[in-house]
């Protein structure tokens, strides 16, 4: 893997690291305790590229728990809780925008 110094990651605002959990594919976010959380509100929000890269390294080093980690921009609510900043991330955190037909 390329060393952090050689890589470039430019973030332009509050950012979290997100991935899918290996065993069931569920959407997860890297939390303050270095573990994967199931809610975005528990995610570790960073604001500098160095911090984001550091978290991404932690995430990529942990292929057993979660896969496909990447940085995602978030918006912060007044109380500081992160909210998804893009439609894609909104759908990832709250599910499809369409109603299920299923009865099960």
């Amino acid at each position, binding site marked *: 893997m390329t060393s952090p110094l050689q890589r470039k990651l430019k973030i332009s605002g509050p950012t979290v690291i997100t991935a899918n959990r*290996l065993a069931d594919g569920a*959407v997860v976010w890297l939390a303050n305790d270095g573990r994967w959380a199931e809610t975005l509100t528990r995610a570790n929000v960073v604001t500098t590229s160095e911090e984001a890269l550091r978290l991404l390294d932690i995430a990529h080093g942990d292929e057993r728990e979660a896969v*496909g980690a990447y940085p995602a921009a978030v918006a912060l609510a007044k109380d500081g809780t992160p909210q998804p900043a*893009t439609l894609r991330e909104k*759908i*990832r955190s709250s599910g499809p*925008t*369409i109603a299920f037909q*299923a009865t*099960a």
Partner: protein
Amino acid sequence: MYIHDEFDRTFLKERVAEFRDQVARRLSGELTEEEFKMLRLMNGVYLQLHAYMLRVCIPYGTLASKQLRALARVARRYDKGYGHFTTRQNIQFNWIKLAELPDAMAELAEVGIHGIQTSGNCIRNTTTDAFAGAAPDEIEDPRLYAEVIRQWSTLHPEFTYLPRKFKIAISAATHDRAAIRVHDVGLRLHKKDGRTGFEVMVGGGLGRTPYIGQTIREFLPKEDLLTYLEAILRTYNLGGRRDNIYKARIKILVHDLGAEAFGKLVEEEWAKIKDGALKLDEAGLAAIRAHFHTPDLPALPEKPAVLADALKDPAFARWHAQSVTAHKVPGHAIVTLSLKPVGGPPGDCTADQMDAIADLADAYSHGEVRVAHEQNLVFPHVRQQDLPALWGKLEALGVATPNVGLVTDIISCPGLDYCALANTRSIPIAQQITERFADPERIADIGLLHVNISGCINACGHHHVGHIGILGVEKKDQEFFQITLGGKGNAKARLGELIGPAIPETEVVDVVERLVDTYLSLRTGPGETFIAAVERLGVEPFKDSAYAPR
């Protein structure tokens, strides 16, 4: 339908055991994600936005009722109670857990179905006409050859790590219902001088670089099917680009070399293997044919009294006009079940619907169901006298919307609501269109019109070949859509023409309606379809009206 024997059953068990072991090795960390990804893909397992997705292969679109019930069980037990039928005659489950996948696969294997080679850079599920074996316009049942190809391509030791995916489609009818010109290889069964053989087309495909397949051989005797395919695949495996994923499909190789030069390479390779072990003979074909159970249908009176009576009911008559197609045996019919209800996601089917449809298939269609390329289901063998009763039951299930082939029979990919590759959503657009065009009389008056929606350039909704094509593009986190007109997916396949700049999501349904209104005002009469009008007039008048009020 094809009846598996002990060899097929043993193979499927071995495949499930192998995958179970691979999952265990992945979970234990023995396999890296990079290594595992290729293995899971070749079993139809994707990692999507919210969960793993399992794509289950329905070989040549033919399902036995017990197989459909098994799909319903898997939907309930391992998923959220529904599945999604795709344009490649497959079904997808959206919410499966990796750790539970081997068990789900073992259940499917019990009834002879699986996800093998529904993804990955290998030879995918061979697709064909959903009306195969029932259509009056076919010269032979193409599923025999689809099965021959399935067996040859299953875990082919040489062609499982190709430059990119490889899709084959076969048609044996005058009317191409399998979109063979937009596949890596398209095969058209036809007769020449009393012999049966194939026209072979290569290099078709949609995606970001759409091409219509080109014929490299007008007539290939049927005995030579596999040797010729082996020659094509070998030429591609050795010569296809591997440096750029977007240029790795065979269509790029064919385009770069020219179809004639590519065909020459294939012929040279073929000359060396054409009389080899893969050459088919009548005995070999007969052995595979013997595995197909085809119902013995007696000729019955055409248009029996009960049907003639029912046709006096306008609602039944509307459904009959769209959903019922002629069968090769008198007194029978092919019935299409619309999975495009007003306001529903195109191609979705709940577990309860699957079970009920399986029961109806047993009662009315010799236990057989087909999956159509247009994301609908088909009962291939229904007695005409049963149509009124069947209609009532299909209505009750919500699969008798009288819109087959009409503006609301939309082909759509899952889009950003599920798909990790999508740029925009596509299902909500489909829902809006079906709601705007909910009036069955109005859509019947509009007539034949294919609307196709893709949520990204990978074109899983085949927007290039929609009479109206809709492609999602994202701009600064806003959903925009490009509109193309005049595409066709049949034997005379043609790519649609872009009519102007992308429009915001909120305007798509209005633009579609204006295009339809323009057609209605310009057509020579109800006999001229939307696509015929576009071909006669060109896109200009449509372009003007689509953008005029802006």
